[in-house]
């Protein structure tokens, strides 16, 4: 079974530029999560999808971050415009069911550096 795929693995941009990350979850997994992990911190949930609907986006900075999961499969997370404090690893995870108790399978992450 293929794991969660993310691309790109690394991205360097200047502040005020835009950036997009892509995630392909494990086949058949209904729930998809995007996390932000700042250096020295634990992952922080940004948004949770169940199929193509948003379950929780309470911690997503909606003035600059957006995410979509068209057709309930892969997902993109966009930042526009980026700020210095957005430098972090962006992790995508998926789970078979919708409860957070279900095991989440994480991708390798996209490391973003905003200069």
């Amino acid at each position: 079974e293929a794991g969660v795929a993310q691309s790109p693995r690394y991205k360097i941009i200047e502040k005020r530029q835009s950036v997009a990350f892509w995630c392909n979850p494990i086949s058949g997994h209904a729930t998809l999560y995007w996390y932000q992990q700042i250096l020295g911190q634990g992952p922080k949930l940004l948004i949770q999808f169940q199929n193509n609907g948003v379950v929780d986006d309470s911690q997503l900075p909606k003035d600059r971050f957006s995410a979509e999961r068209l057709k309930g499969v892969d997902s993109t997370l966009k930042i526009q415009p980026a700020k210095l404090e957005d430098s972090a690893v962006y992790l995508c995870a998926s789970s078979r069911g919708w409860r957070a108790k279900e095991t989440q399978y994480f991708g390798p992450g996209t490391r973003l550096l905003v200069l």
Partner: protein
Amino acid sequence: DQQVKQNSPSLSVQEGRISILNCDYTNSMFDYFLWYKKYPAEGPTFLISISSIKDKNEDGRFTVFLNKSAKHLSLHIVPSQPGDSAVYFCAALLADDKIIFGKGTRLHILP
């Protein structure tokens, strides 16, 4: 305000000995706890979990203990192996499925 605290940024343990990683929480509404393990340049992987109605859960070399009165949980690894060197995250769930991670503890297993 950190609701899940891992106060030890790092821990070094001799191979073959017991590793004990600690986690404290402040919110008594947490009802489920998980431990994830993370290697460099990889995403976290699930290790073990425990419901708040239990005080112990064991899976092979890994045991998680929960002390609700102290709002404390610990992960025991016995015996510690070189492949256990990683960052360990404690995470807690609220009933509405909000998940909150601690900052992590880096475990070094010494030869």
